[in-house]
């Protein structure tokens, strides 16, 4: 577990980091919390010539509520998200997702931006940003741009970011007051990567029909997916066991999971169906308590 030689550069600002990226191009990798990159380097699977350390850029570490959204700096650590009273109150599913990442040591170091850009097919945040329709703010040489979560994940371990761009902020639109969300994860042992996971945010109208709904899942393929077909199935309908089973069936049919040591594709499809059904039921229960009378 000894990485190949590399040059270490410490960026003091986003501008610094972009300048370094411009200078070193494809030879460089950004170092955030290092909880995925450093193990890959130690296995010599990743061998960047230059490491640009951005995880101490103070401007990138914040959680705040602003104009109807929660904004998180990309270098905000999992532990800060897990423990943030603001997040727990406004977007509990995000705190739940953060709390299920790996172990305490990893959560103390790892960052939300790092995890999203790592784009592990079994990562925890992907489902959440898709369920909530988050916006990814990026800064590059040619200026700023915003990538919607739905366009962000392009393939396993790949995102829509250009090589000279940095993800700086994740903007999560605040869910409706009577909406409730949940993140459920099926894992072999606590802290493992997900076999499958589901993030479900929904609200009910006074009649008990599903009003707004956002669903993201992992374990359905190479990238986390927004379950659009399931969202349309549920939207506007009165919830029932049969409908929830149908939702599970729908996700199962469309999923194309990757077979690995955590299970065969056939197994993972069933696991995903089960975890989605449970997440919908749990979200319903939570939403029911908030439903307008």
């Amino acid at each position, binding site marked *: 577990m000894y990485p190949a030689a590399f040059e270490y550069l410490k960026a003091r600002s986003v501008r610094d980091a972009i300048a370094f990226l411009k200078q070193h191009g494809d030879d460089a990798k950004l170092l955030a919390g290092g909880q995925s990159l450093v193990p890959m380097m130690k*296995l010599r699977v990743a061998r960047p010539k230059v490491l640009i350390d951005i995880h101490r850029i103070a401007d990138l570490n914040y959680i705040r509520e602003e104009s109807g959204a929660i904004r998180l700096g990309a270098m905000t650590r999992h532990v800060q998200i897990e423990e943030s009273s603001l997040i727990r109150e406004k977007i509990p599913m995000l705190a739940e997702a953060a709390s299920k990442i790996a172990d305490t040591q990893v959560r103390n170091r790892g960052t939300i931006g790092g995890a999203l850009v790592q784009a592990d097919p079994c990562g925890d945040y992907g489902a959440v940003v898709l369920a909530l329709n988050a916006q990814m703010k990026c800064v590059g040489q040619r200026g700023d741009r915003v990538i919607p979560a739905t366009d962000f994940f392009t393939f396993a371990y790949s995102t829509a970011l250009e090589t000279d761009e940095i993800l700086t902020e994740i903007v999560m639109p605040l869910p409706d007051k009577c909406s409730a969300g949940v993140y459920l994860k*099926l894992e072999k042992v606590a802290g493992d990567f997900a076999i499958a996971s589901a993030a479900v945010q929904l609200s009910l109208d006074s009649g008990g029909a599903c009003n707004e709904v956002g669903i993201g899942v992992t374990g359905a393929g190479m990238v986390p997916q927004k379950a659009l077909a399931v969202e349309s199935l549920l939207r506007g309908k009165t919830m029932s066991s049969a409908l929830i089973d149908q939702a599970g069936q729908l996700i199962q049919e469309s999923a194309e999971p990757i077979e690995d*040591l*955590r299970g065969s594709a056939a197994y993972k499809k069933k696991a995903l169906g*089960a975890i989605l059904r449970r997440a919908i039921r749990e979200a319903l229960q939570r939403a029911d308590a908030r439903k307008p009378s």
Partner: protein
Amino acid sequence: MIMEFPITPPIGDRVKRKETLRFVTGTGHYVDDLLPPGTLHAAFVRSSCAHARIKGVAVEAARAMPGVHAVFTGEDIAHQVKPLRVGGSSLLRQIKLYPLAVDKVRYYGEPLAVVVADNRYLAEDAVEAVSVDYSPLPVVIDPEAAMEPGAPIVHEDVGSNIVYKYHFATDGIDKVFQDADVVVRERIRSHRIAACPIEPRAYLAHYNKEEDSLTMWSATANPHSLRGRIGDILDFPEGKIRVIAPDVGGSFGVKIQTYQEELLLPYLSRELGRPIKWCETRVEHMRNGRHGRDQIHTIEMALKKDGTMLGIKDKIIADMGSTYTVDHSIMAAALYMTGVYQIQNYAVDAFGISTNKTTHGSLRGIGKADASYVLERLVDIAARELKLDPIDIRMKNFIPPEAFPYRNATGALYDSGQYQLALKRTAAMAGYEQRRKEQAELRKRGIYRGIGVALVMEPTSSSRIHATGGYASCRLRIDPSGAVTVFSSMGEQGQGHETTIAQIVASQTGIPFDKITVIHGDTLPTPYGFGTGSSRSSVVLMPSAWVAGKLMRDKILGIAARQLGVAPEKLEIGDGKVFVRENHQQSIAVMEIVRTAYGAIHLLPENMEPGLEVTGYFVNPNIDYAPDAKGRMNTFSSYPYAAVIAVVDVDVETGMIKIVKYATVHDCGNMINPQIVDTQQQGSIMQGIGAALYEELRYDEDGQLLTSTFMDYRLPSVEEVPELALEHIVTPNPFTPLGAKGAGETGMLGPPPALCNAVEDALSPLGVKIRETPLTPDRILNLIEQAQATSHHA
């Protein structure tokens, strides 16, 4: 010989461990903390093929890399060192094994060349510059396939992959099977796992040219044996070698063996005249550390209709991997397949098979875990067949307490046990009757709850000629300053010897526990002894401390008796004094006796040697070193056991298993320190839960290990610890002075059978049969589907 000795405090007290403070404050001292001036670092070129001829190894580019001092290939050193002394019994076909592969590689990751450089990073860079020309050979991974004619041969000089054969049968075994009402038959496999100590292997060799001597720091559990092996392969006088095992971060059996890398480092240090260090990475540990389990049993049991067990026949196929050096895993299974039951009719054919997998070796519960797993599964299968309760069938067949010492069919002599009592108490702790009623209720609500029963037995303190010797020793010294030091022949890797040895010596001599220091793991000051394995410390090492304490006590009392003019029998030691039992005023300070022993020897009793230094030996009781005419022998000294009842819920939608309760009653005889026994049990049980539910070493068909990091080989963490109810009953081993039986391994044996039995019980309405482990969620869901498909067809 039945021993009867008084056990007095602090033996049996929950004394705080002496060693804990330095570990929890991060001030322990491990091999990787050492860095003598001038140290160079080794890194290994490892085979990327599971089976191939080495056509050539190009090292020139690596030699030219910055900071590189030397590169050696297997060919370079084959003529410079002798092959490793391979262990094992006379039944094991011997192979020649060198520190680096010569001509041929036999498993993925086998070391075939080494780079020595200024630091490990440069060494690893140079490893990448070594290019190996392989001529790939067909790979054999499955042990049953390896037995077929025409299978690729792992060791050509042996000529067959069947490298070990053992047959044993009692007279009349066939008749028992002919006459039986019922015969149950099953093929059960124990899967391959890794030990995963927190500290992987680590070595530092320092040859001193001026003194022509060698110091080897090793994270070993077997320092004295290692010293002999280094002397052997280097043809170097053993007396000039010192092996030091500093703090060692766990072994679980894996560090009791000697490894290729471990023997190469002293050679490199002697060649290069510099200290050489190598610390194993986790990936290397998964690929190269000895693996455990991996036996296939095709086993049958003959029974009467009422559940009386009549006989067992077993065929064992043990996958020993490639560069095998030992065979005791097979014997430890083959001799104990009748377990805790009164079964005197038994036959076994056992085969040790060489394959292109990592070498198999010791791992907590070696062989015995396979045996108890297979047997306790078979007992449940028989119970289901005969529609008997799993507790009832066991109770009916247990060896009763009055039958001890009990000789089993293979000649093993069980010291003591109260199996009925242990299981009865466990059933009470688990609320067995109530749980059975609950279970029926829960099933109506679609909750699949299962209850699994097992009684596992763990033979401990094995003795084999030249391998584990059958004895241990402690030297006890009170120096002229009054400091009390015990030199232990066995090292420790977390067992708490510094505490338990001090408890024993304190109990024997009256010297306060806090004043006793225990030195271990260093071949220079400590007396000779074999490694810390087979749970033997409390069976054979602790009694040797007890003997040393007794010798010292006798000496102190002898000196005091002469000075006080009283018979030694009338004296007691306490409060730093020796005093007359009937008259406490008549006394002499222990320090006065120390001064006498060293400085005023004219006051010593006649014929007494000066000084205060004694050595205590203890010999494992009841050991046979050769079989009798019928092939029977006893090779283990003690037989601790545990009854287990596990309650689980199986999620039939996801295949996940939740342990609702794990209740166990454990009997390791007298406990020197119950606190240490409890923590041993907790850790051991968790390691067993890991083996049953999560951990598995998996190879692809090309022989590549797929699980070489903790991302793919998942260990349970504190979050997986179930509700654990742990109690003890004490049935002392009557053949050892402390009555202790060994506590290191039994815990790990319980979870695989108990959890499999529980899960099969939970899913019995669906007709699920479990024959493979670990019980991963995908496997469970597949089994449910298969069972449903079968029942639809029926």
